[in-house]
């Protein structure tokens, strides 16, 4: 039902030519419009004087009675108008709209709540430049110094696709309290050259800090606070051009209030093997530090300050490192893998560390060989794993099914990257969920776990091996590029609290009565290891009898299918008791957030912010995606009216899983599932979550027409 609008005021007339449509819409459908006259929705698309098309939405209750209608945008009043309905009974509705006021873009309004943004009591420093210039070195040293000085750190890095050249970004967020995400804004930008400036300056927040090599670039006055440091010049004076990076690090330490002595410690540790190089390097650091103190001592940027008192023990570690150590702690002694970004660092770590533990690492000819060797090794008694990324995982699917069929324990880490196909190897995504849950011919039971922080990478690997060994099944661990590459300060890990599960061994019998695939109540059968006297069996990929011989009878296939799936059901009971999920926030909130994996940090941060603004919200994160802790999730869904599901994929895979699995509760309670997809290769920022929470809160409070849910 299209309507015509006429514009009254002179100002409104000026924009009349560009007025696109005035549409009355009704969520209940237009046919019921006349029945619900007291309840109109108006959507106006107009080209306002502010020079761009914007979409205003307003909801008017009884327009005739209350002629002033506010059009809101992003929670702020963007325009007010007077609207009258000319004829309610006519098949065509005529709205007369008179614009009283149009407020500009970004103009803050007193009315309505604003979405919380910013980095709280932490700062975000970005360094960008050509690969090979030392950006990563500067970042890494800075982060280590910050951590040593007692700060919490959280980094984000993207690599170029090229080996030499290509743009590389290293970003560090530091704070006195636990840092949970990348933050929203860039507070400080470090530019070593013009390109580093050009690429990132638009992301530096207004009034942010710009630190640059004054020998390389002369940026214009752009509203930021400038701190030029003649890095090249200082290095030239020292006749030590390779010291440029450390001069910059020294300047950064001074600018952000970090002690030089900690910087010296880090450099000493890094150069431990080359004491001859130490004096010049330490000198570079000191000169950068001194320059800033002498020139900007009076006007240093505001920074987080240092914590006082006893500092707790912290590890400065990346997601892949934590996962690899978790695997070793869980008893992994065999690793087979094929290089693939961003899983390669895990393999390299294993290659370095496994031999010392008597374990074996092999670089295979492809991913199919990698998973096959891991399965073979596990069959022969080793705790075995492989790690890969999406394209490699796709190649592994047939063998994954085989491990499920032959009931061989196996751990597969999929460090997700943006796809499909080769996609963006160095960018993050959470889009392999369906592949992890469902891929393979027929139904191959498996477990799927997803760590949600760097620390959790360690714990989920232990969990994964325990589940794999106990249930003799493949376990897929879904990490992602951002989680795998970022460095975080995490609390010390208590190895004493770790409990390992070993696979069920059979009682020795040599009379040939051993049945490898014995049907049991739990579905778990004792597993013999080659070398045990007389317990012969064949790990059989064909459907098989209890003894492991090929057998295609309907009864066998039925009972064996049930046996294999029963293991998941048994695990489902266990998973309720394991610490695989977190529920936090306001337990009486109507708005819930459910998610998985590395988006958790941003959600935690966003929730703290919106809660401070009196929006009630509660979250549930599960690290076990198959099986899911059903009982806990059903309890969480009680009393919720909307569930926001943030995910780094287009379709909203986890949202689909929730809708499908808990459909009854969702329909019964009238819960709205709000997909929050993000598919730009970058992780969530807290503000992304805040924004949607606000939208949903407004919707539930009945103030806004509709929540935009793209891409579903």
């Amino acid at each position: 039902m299209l309507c015509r609008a006429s514009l009254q005021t002179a100002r409104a007339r000026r924009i009349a030519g560009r007025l696109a449509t005035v549409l009355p819409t009704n969520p209940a459908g237009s046919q019921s419009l006349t029945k619900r006259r007291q309840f109109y929705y108006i959507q106006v698309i107009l080209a306002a004087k502010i020079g761009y098309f914007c979409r205003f939405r307003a909801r008017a209750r009884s327009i005739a009675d209350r002629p002033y209608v506010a059009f809101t945008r992003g929670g702020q009043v963007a325009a007010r108008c007077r609207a009258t309905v000319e004829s309610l009974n006519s098949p065509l509705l005529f709205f007369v709209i008179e614009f009283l006021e149009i407020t500009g873009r970004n103009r803050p309004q007193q009315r309505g709540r604003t979405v919380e943004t910013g980095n709280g009591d932490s700062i975000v420093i970005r360094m960008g430049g050509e690969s090979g210039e030392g950006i990563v070195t500067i970042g890494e040293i800075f982060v280590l110094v910050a951590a040593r000085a007692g700060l919490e750190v959280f980094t984000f890095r993207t690599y170029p696709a090229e080996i030499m050249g290509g743009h590389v970004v290293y970003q560090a967020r530091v704070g006195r309290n636990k840092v949970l995400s990348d933050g929203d804004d860039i507070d400080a930008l470090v530019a070593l050259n013009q390109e580093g400036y050009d690429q990132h300056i638009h992301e530096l927040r207004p009034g942010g800090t710009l630190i640059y090599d004054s020998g390389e670039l002369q940026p214009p006055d752009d509203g930021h606070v400038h701190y030029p440091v003649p890095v090249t010049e200082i290095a030239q004076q020292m006749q030590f051009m390779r010291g440029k990076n450390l001069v910059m690090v020294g300047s950064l330490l001074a600018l952000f209030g970090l002690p030089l002595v900690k910087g010296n410690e880090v450099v000493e540790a890094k150069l431990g093997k080359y004491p001859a190089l130490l004096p010049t390097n330490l000198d570079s650091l000191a000169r950068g530090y001194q320059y800033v103190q002498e020139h900007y001592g009076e006007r240093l940027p505001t920074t987080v300050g240092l914590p006082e008192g006893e500092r707790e023990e912290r590890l400065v570690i990346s997601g892949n490192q934590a996962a690899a150590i978790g695997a070793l702690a869980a008893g992994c002694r065999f690793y087979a893998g094929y290089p693939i970004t961003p899983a390669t660092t895990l393999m390299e770590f294993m290659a370095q560390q496994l031999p010392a533990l008597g374990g074996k690492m092999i670089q295979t000819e492809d991913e199919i060989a990698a998973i096959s060797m891991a399965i073979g090794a596990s069959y022969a008694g080793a705790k075995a794993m492989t790690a890969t990324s999406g394209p490699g995982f796709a190649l592994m699917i047939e063998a994954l099914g085989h491990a499920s069929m032959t009931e061989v324990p196996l751990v597969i880490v999929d460090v997700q990257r943006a796809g499909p196909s080769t996609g963006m190897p160095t960018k993050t995504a959470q889009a392999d969920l369906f592949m992890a849950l469902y891929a393979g011919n027929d139904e191959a039971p498996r477990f799927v776990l997803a760590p949600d922080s760097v620390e959790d990478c360690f714990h989920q690997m232990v969990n994964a091996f325990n589940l794999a060994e106990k249930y003799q099944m493949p376990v897929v661990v879904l990490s992602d590029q951002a989680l795998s590459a970022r460095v975080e300060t995490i609390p010390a890990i208590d190895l004493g609290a770790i409990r390992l599960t070993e696979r069920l061994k059979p009682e020795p019998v040599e009379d040939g009565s051993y049945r490898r695939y014995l049907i049991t109540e739990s579905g778990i059968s004792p597993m013999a290891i080659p070398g045990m006297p007389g317990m012969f069996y064949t790990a059989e990929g064909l459907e098989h009898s209890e003894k492991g011989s090929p057998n295609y009878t309907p009864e066998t296939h039925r009972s064996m299918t049930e046996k294999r799936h029963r293991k998941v059901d048994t695990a489902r009971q266990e998973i309720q008791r394991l610490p695989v999920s977190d529920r936090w926030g306001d337990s009486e909130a109507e708005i819930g957030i459910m998610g998985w994996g590395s988006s958790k940090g941003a959600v935690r941060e966003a929730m703290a912010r919106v809660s401070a603004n009196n929006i009630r919200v509660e979250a549930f994160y599960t690290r076990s995606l198959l099986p899911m802790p059903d009982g806990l999730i059903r309890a969480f869904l009680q009393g919720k009216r909307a569930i926001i599901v943030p995910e780094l994929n287009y379709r909203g895979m986890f949202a689909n899983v929730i809708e499908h699995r808990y459909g009854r509760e969702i329909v019964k309670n009238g819960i709205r599932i709000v997909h929050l997809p993000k598919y730009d290769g970058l992780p969530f920022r807290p503000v992304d979550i805040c924004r949607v929470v606000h939208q949903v809160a407004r919707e539930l409070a009945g103030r806004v027409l509709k929540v935009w849910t793209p891409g579903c």
Partner: protein
Amino acid sequence: MITTEQKLTIKDLKSAVKPIWCPGCGDYGVLNAVMKTIIGLQLDPSHVAMVSGIGCSGRFPAFVNAYGFHGVHGRALPFASGVKLANPDLTVFVLGGDGDAFSIGAGHLPHAARRNIDLTYIVMDNSIYGLTKGQPSATSPADVLQQSTVKYKGRRKGMTGMLNLAQTVSPVNPIAMALAYEASFVARGFSGAPKELHEILKTAVLHRGFSLVQVISPCTTFYDTYNYWRQLAQPLPADHDCTDRAAAFRLALELDKAYLGIFYQVERPSFEDQVAKLIAQPTDSFAPTAVASLLNRFRR
């Protein structure tokens, strides 16, 4: 290699599962030769693993009273490599067909060969896909339709069509391939010559490293080439020096003869022996001290 004190017999080694192969299938000869090899070397069956791929040959492990692993198509070598690396005490036989070894799994062959993991890879080569009823394989000769005593005409049209098309491509030369990949042991046997086959297998198992044994094992149902191979088969020249790779190549390229015997054998350290030198004593699966010291490196 772990041997047994007990006197093993064929009866001990035969499992309760009866082979499903067609009467006259070459694979029976291979099965017998493998069992005889185990008996001859007095291998402890509890320390023998039989790893197979898919196809008629893939059923092999089920018929032997030893540890078996029936994998997916083409991946027998990686599965077996994992088994051997995780437990080097096992004697690992890898059983495959020409589809497994030279088509779907051909990419694994060079890597198994260059790693030189101590595996005995027995490829039962019938130059046809038997289990799927007679499609040509990578080793089907160019004159594929002429070589079989099986009359194709009037049997299955699809199959004849496939075989017709097969004449447009050249077959692979498994022995030359393995030599090019620097397999440290390359031999050819024939299920129609069981005594020689047994001898070859014995040497192959004793060889410390990767051994590839191509066993001509005709399919009596879809591609009966017994007569063809019997005409071509002959022992390798008595003066053949099996450490001479170039000579082995020359013999492998003589396509009008099918030499039986060990083409090439050279001692090269096996992968697992070299790895053993690089790694420490195996630790328990729970090694908190080692893990703690690893974590310590990341303390701020």
